[in-house]
């Protein structure tokens, strides 16, 4: 089938063209303005952070040579020629790695438990009182916004050096992050079962237990697994401030220029993070189907 394209009269065409050009010009102007503001902010930031492009390029060479050095053993050979020498401390590192995983596991579980207890109070549709919701929400916000490592710094002073500070820091940060996500799931839950149960005269607690929890557990578990994945990364740096885990070994190796150790520990961490990523991804896909993965 052919359709005839009507040719507009010249006058009308000119008007339309002008309107189109004006619209495009306005958009371009706005874009240009945005670009100028952004560039100005960049220049300001560069002055603030004492950066200039020339130093960047001179240092980039150093960066590459740093990687060259961490891939070289003390005897001048490449690390992969002698894996036994490269991973000489594997017993100790594996133990620290286990500690890291344990820190993130315990931290995540404690955090998820607290978040589970608090999120019904923070969700719009289930909270028993507005003032309570406000208080719980601010608390969660605080726990979420202060970075985990700052908590760790304070806890190291209160609880002493060691993995306990790391676990508590991760637990608090996870409580904040998971509490928000959990309460969002609850807000999306279907309220009809709640009404059904309330109409039988049940208390608030049984409404939550029998109407809301069955709807939301899959989402909770999915988010908790995702959080565990994030916390493994987080726990790997907790050692920087003395809060346990493999970070302690890494920071010593980096600060004291034990080059081949740095690459060995880094590789251990990266591989572990990979495995955890893949394992939790598989577990989430397997347990909750594709739709729960997002």
């Amino acid at each position: 089938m052919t359709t005839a394209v009507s040719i507009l009269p010249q006058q009308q065409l000119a008007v339309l063209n002008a309107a189109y050009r004006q619209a495009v010009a306005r958009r371009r102007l706005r874009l240009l303005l945005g670009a100028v503001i952004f560039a100005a902010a960049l220049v300001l930031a560069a002055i603030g952070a004492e950066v200039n492009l020339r130093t960047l390029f001179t240092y980039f060479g150093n960066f590459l040579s740093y990687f060259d050095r961490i891939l070289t053993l003390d005897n001048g050979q490449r690390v992969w020629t002698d894996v036994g020498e490269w991973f000489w401390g594997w017993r100790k590192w594996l133990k620290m790695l286990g500690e890291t995983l344990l820190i993130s596991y315990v931290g995540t579980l404690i955090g998820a438990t607290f978040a589970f207890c608090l999120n019904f109070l923070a969700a719009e549709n289930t909270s028993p009182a507005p003032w309570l919701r406000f208080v719980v929400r601010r608390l969660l916000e605080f726990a979420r916004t202060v970075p985990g490592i700052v908590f760790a710094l304070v806890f190291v002073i209160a609880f002493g050096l060691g993995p306990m500070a790391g676990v508590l820091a991760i637990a608090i940060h996870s409580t904040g992050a998971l509490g928000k996500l959990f309460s969002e799931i609850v807000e999306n839950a279907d309220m009809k079962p709640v009404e059904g149960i309330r109409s039988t005269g049940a208390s608030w607690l049984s409404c939550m237990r029998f109407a809301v929890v069955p709807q939301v557990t899959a989402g909770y578990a999915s988010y908790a697994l995702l959080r565990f994945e994030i916390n493994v990364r987080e726990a790997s740096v907790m050692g920087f401030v003395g809060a346990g885990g493999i970070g302690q070994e890494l920071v010593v190796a980096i600060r004291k220029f034990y080059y081949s150790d740095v690459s060995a520990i880094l590789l251990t961490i990266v591989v572990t993070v990979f495995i955890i990523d893949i394992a939790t991804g598989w577990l989430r896909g397997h347990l909750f189907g594709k739709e729960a993965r997002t």
Partner: protein
Amino acid sequence: MTKPQEVDAAQMRARYPEVFERPASARLATPAMIVAAFAILIYGLVDLDFSPSRFFAGLSQLGWISLMMIPPDPGSSLPIYLKALGETLSIALLGTTLGALFALPVSLLAARNIVPSSILRFPVRRFLDSIRGVDTLIWALVWINVVGLGPFAGVLAIAVSDFGAFGKLFSEAFEGADQKQVEGIRASGGSALHEIRFGLLPQVLPVIAGQVLYFIESNTRSATIIGIVGAGGIGLQLAEQIRVLEWQKVSFLILMILVAVAAIDFISGKLRFAIIGRRAVA
């Protein structure tokens, strides 16, 4: 109308046992998982030296610390703190921009619709994955070794870890782009350059801009902490004040960080909405 047939419950139970009674394995699975999870938890608590006495001693210590934090007071170092905050924001902005600039060409190599050969794509993707597997704080430590203490190391640390994240996100944006517009331009006689300029870029740029803005926001948080290992910004001040137990200054610094993060969240939220809104109109 026939009356609904009376059913014998016992008969139905015999006929459809799987409806009335879930197999023991399914019924036991959840409690078993919960018990296992908490068993590992207990093991972890023991292994990580959680003793109740230590915990409560620490808790009372923490209570004292919280009391000493009130009221937040910068003392005479407010100008230094403001400068450090500016430095933190600069680190976040510069680091994100640098990371995005470097990631753009690499992300093209990782996009399936641009580089069809998986032999070339695979190493690029793994490379980006391993960069992302290393935390920003670790990159900060590495860069401090290379360029020395200071905010410059922080900028580079954020740039490198963002490079990994952006490479993946941008390549996904390219893969998600609609091929129909590209084909339309080819059909009307456009060159390959026209295809990218008018077919691909208008679809991808708003997505990329939104992601960059979001990362500037989240990097403000990362930039506050990389100072703890010595890479400049407000984290440096925070770590120092914690170590010398100046709790009033610590609480002031934490408040400052919270306010700054909230402000950046607000601004970038507005900007992102503006960008995505314009895209919906166009």
